[in-house]
């Protein structure tokens, strides 16, 4: 095998060199992205962690975000982010999944081929543009519809961000549903399942990991969203007083960092607390990603066994 084919051998060295270079490039790219993430985390920790010692804990865990007076409570901001995110998820997940199921399982081919690119186009909409729509259309509407003093509320932000998350959810969930082998659907249909029974009992469970990823990425987009949410939620970092707070102004963690970072003195307490907020955000999205990974990974293994 080694000497019987001289022509094969003569082509070997260059092929091996190319192989080596490509392997090296891929490896460097992989290590670089890990390195960058590590750098960012280190930087965040270095700038943010001192806040825990320099700023009194009573201030951090207090009730007010009022940096000029030295009140740095994270709670109003965490609350603001969670309200907007949860609200957006409640609105976007059912609608997004519904649309994905419609596109993948129900819609005729030409409808799907027209709608899917349009939905994906929507995903590329810059969030500032979305914010404009929020300020000019959505917020006056909400002010009138609910008879509120201002239309810039957590609810407005949730609606708008839900809208921003829908294209992500639709696009990824539809891919996952479409990827379910046709044979599953046929097998279920062949024993007399109705189309709805097939979707609910077979297609959705089989696509569970992809659908979950879609939801998680959609939520991730909402948590990380800054511009649009800053424009429509009213920018008031206050702690909630009951359910009515949903229709009052809030401020999210991202909006706080974006609006205050420009006017803060480097190294000051305020500066450190802003980075601490960054750490909290980072931790939150990490938790979401890890959950999504664990859930979908467990499913992949089962699917792999299924297909082997």
């Amino acid at each position, binding site marked *: 095998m080694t000497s019987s084919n001289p022509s094969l051998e003569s082509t070997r060295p260059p092929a091996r060199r190319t192989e080596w270079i490509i392997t090296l490039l891929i490896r460097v790219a992989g290590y670089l992205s890990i390195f960058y993430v590590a750098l960012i985390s280190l930087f965040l920790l270095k700038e943010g962690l001192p806040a825990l010692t320099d700023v009194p804990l009573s201030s951090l865990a207090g009730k007010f975000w009022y940096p000029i007076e030295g009140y740095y409570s994270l709670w109003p901001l965490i609350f603001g982010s969670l309200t907007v995110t949860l609200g957006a998820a409640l609105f976007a997940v059912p609608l997004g999944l519904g649309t994905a199921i419609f596109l993948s399982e129900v819609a005729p081919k030409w409808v799907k081929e027209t709608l899917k690119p349009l939905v994906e186009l929507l995903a590329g909409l810059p969030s500032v543009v979305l914010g404009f729509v929020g300020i000019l259309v959505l917020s006056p509407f909400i002010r009138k519809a609910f008879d509120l003093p201002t239309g810039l509320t957590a609810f407005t932000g949730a609606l708008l961000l839900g809208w921003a998350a829908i294209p992500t959810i639709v696009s990824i969930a539809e891919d996952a549903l479409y990827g379910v082998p046709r044979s599953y659907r046929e097998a279920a249909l062949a*024993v007399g*399942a109705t189309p709805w*029974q097939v979707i609910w009992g077979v297609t959705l469970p089989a696509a569970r990991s992809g659908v979950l990823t879609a939801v998680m990425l959609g939520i991730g987009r909402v948590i990380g969203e800054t511009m649009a949410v800053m424009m429509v939620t009213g920018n008031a970092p206050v702690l909630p007083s009951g359910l009515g707070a949903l229709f009052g102004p809030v401020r999210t963690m991202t909006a706080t960092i974006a609006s205050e970072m420009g006017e803060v003195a480097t190294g000051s307490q305020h500066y450190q607390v802003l980075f601490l907020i960054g750490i909290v955000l980072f931790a939150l999205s990490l938790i979401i990603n890890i959950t999504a990974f664990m859930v979908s990974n467990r499913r992949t293994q089962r699917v792999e066994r299924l297909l082997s």
Partner: protein
Amino acid sequence: MDKIVIEHLSLNYSDGTESLKDVSLRIPANQITVLFGPAGGGKSTLLRCINRLNDLADVTMLSGRVLLNGVDVLDPHTNVTELRRRVGMVFSRPVPLPLSIYQNITYGLEIAGERRKARLDEAVERALRQVVLWDEVSDRLQDPAHALSGGQQQRLCIARVLALQPEVILLDEPTSALDPVSTFKIETTLRELRSELTIVLAPHSTQQAARIADTAAFFLAGELVEMQEGEKLFVNPKDPRTQDYIQGRFG
């Protein structure tokens, strides 16, 4: 007695592939009828017309009639769900649903509204015994179905169809992904089943067609070339094209 009568069935797909050209044939009850021929001949298409699974495909032209017990199943008013319970189908690759062994068999019954545990248990045991799988899996019915071997999975899929007590089962190359031992078991099962129901089978090889056919129909490019008793057709075909194919001159 003829269970299924197909009259002048013609069909085209939108991409122009595998169509049927004016096919007429009679499928006798309680026999194994084999549809064979080279790929793209229309065998699968014909099977999928009988239980209307072709509704899912891009069919641009469909004409003719498919009579089951004298009733045209292609009629738009046909209750397709009900039809598919009476006309079961087994596919070339075993497709266990992502459920347990037990649930795979009860799936069809449960969506048909059967909730009584005793009935379901009974149906599971009967169906698994029919496909000679009971002894192999009776102690682990709650295991996931995809933990079974390929041959066992395919027999499970047949059991899933049998649990609904259909009148007809359609099998589209049911043993193409299986080893000879599993193939033998499935063929034996089918021979035993024919006293209870009508079997229409598109085998993946001519050898299997010859082994198992009570009646055989040879399809070529969407046309029915000839159809007669299996023993006669494989020994003494009338049409030269059938003879060429059986003897391996093409295909």
